[in-house]
């Protein structure tokens, strides 16, 4: 039993970790651009992103399922019921969260700060890096919120992953399975594993966040 739990926990970390990493890679630069630039439709876009921050995972799962299912437009890729499909669905859930928090944290910085960095001679990438360091508190909130949202969701993982015992079962879908089988103790144990795992990840991120806050 412990080996099975460990495998499921590891899979959970890998899938949600990869989805969070991808969401940060895409969401931070996008959030930066939205915070810095003014363009037509910016408020509308932010409205959509803020809506996306609260999107029901099960709806995202359904849409991804429709796209990836064998008869769907991307059925040939044979991604349905794989971990990659789960990463994709979780990425779509996490990205608006990362963008939303990132935009807010960059907007909270002095608007003169990017100007200062330009005048001092920082290039585009260097600027993004220096500003991200300034917005560190908010960016780590973005990462924690995104990871928290997808590691705890069950609907999308169930629909696009299929809850296959040896390949796509994660902690949340395992809890559903065990509960429906009447294995309440196992379900509770899995729930505890999920909570402890979340705590360890968030504690590590919090330590990074609060470091050098002297």
């Amino acid at each position, binding site marked *: 039993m412990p080996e099975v739990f460990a495998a499921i926990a590891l899979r959970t970390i890998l899938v949600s970790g990869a989805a969070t990493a991808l969401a940060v890679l895409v969401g931070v630069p996008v959030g930066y651009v939205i915070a810095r630039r003014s363009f037509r439709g910016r408020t509308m876009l932010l409205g959509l992103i803020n809506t996306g921050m609260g999107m029901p995972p099960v709806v995202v799962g359904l849409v991804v399922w429709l796209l990836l299912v064998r008869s769907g437009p991307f059925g040939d890729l044979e991604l349905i019921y794989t971990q990659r499909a789960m990463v994709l669905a979780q990425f779509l859930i996490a990205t608006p969260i990362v963008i939303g928090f990132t935009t807010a944290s960059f907007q909270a910085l002095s608007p*003169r*700060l990017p*100007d*200062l960095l330009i*005048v001092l001679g920082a290039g585009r990438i260097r600027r993004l890096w220096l500003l991200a*360091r*300034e917005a560190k508190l908010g960016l780590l909130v973005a990462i924690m919120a995104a990871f928290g949202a997808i590691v705890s969701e069950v609907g999308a993982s169930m629909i696009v992953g299929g809850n296959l015992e040896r390949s796509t079962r994660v902690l949340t879908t395992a809890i559903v399975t065990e509960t429906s089988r009447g294995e309440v103790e196992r379900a509770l144990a899995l729930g505890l594993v999920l909570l402890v795992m979340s705590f360890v990840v968030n504690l590590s991120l919090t330590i990074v966040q609060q470091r050098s806050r002297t």
Partner: protein
Amino acid sequence: MDIEFEGVQVERGGRRVLDIPSLRLRGTRTTAILGPNGSGKTTLLRLLAGLERARAGHVSYGGASHPSVAYVFQEEVFLRQSVRENLELGLRLRGVNNGEMRRRVEDAAARLGIPHLLDRRADRLSGGEGRRVNLARALCLKAPLVLLDEPLEGLDERTYSRLLDDLPQLLKAFDATTLLVTHNRHEALRVAQDLVVLIDGRIRVAGDKSAVMMNPGKADVAEVLGYSVLAANGHRVAVPPGALRPGPGRLEFSMIVDDLLDLVERRELVGRVGETRVHVAIPGTGETPQRGDRSLIHTERYYDLA
């Protein structure tokens, strides 16, 4: 390095905020840019810093490409790091080696009297300390073009006058072409050799400071230069601050008294000549005009306006 503007136009939101057909700023001198709020002073600095793009025209820098720039912003902007790291950042980005970097930072800190602040957090400084660090960051860059946007704004009187005393010496140390944006006549005259008056995005006068001050020309320019614009014998004159005296004299005005100010070490009448509000120092003793009285005042110094 002279800076030359040719047909430069900057627009924002469809509105022309800067329109400079031609202007030359003389190298290794300090030019003060004076103008009312919203006249385009900061836009002019931002253009030279490369933060704003001209819609038309171009700026040349004595044949060189765009020079490196030291910009002191109106607001204090720092990274959440130590003062030293903030001063070093620009030097790192410009590839200055460690030894040289340390030397420059310590030299700039010494000149501005802030060596004791180097290890403090830059985003937790007082207003006066922040202003000094702002200037030190610009100084250690050793840039050939220095842009100062109201660098002494918002300081208490004591810190202000101390920094103002130091500023001309500092600018000499910069040995750069310097632009100082201000709306303070006194500051401009103390620090700059040349003056430019900018109103509604247009250069109204530019040149050596005494030439500009002695020939303000139009009433709106005279006001920007800190003169009181008064009507006398059917034409208008520019009267320097503090030049009005009670009683008869070379050029006389009739003032309606609004108030008498008791400033302890001196007394001042506040009143109106036509529409213009004026202040006149009066002797500590003797007859005191009352509110609503008409009082004769005069000036010995004035410039005729067009």
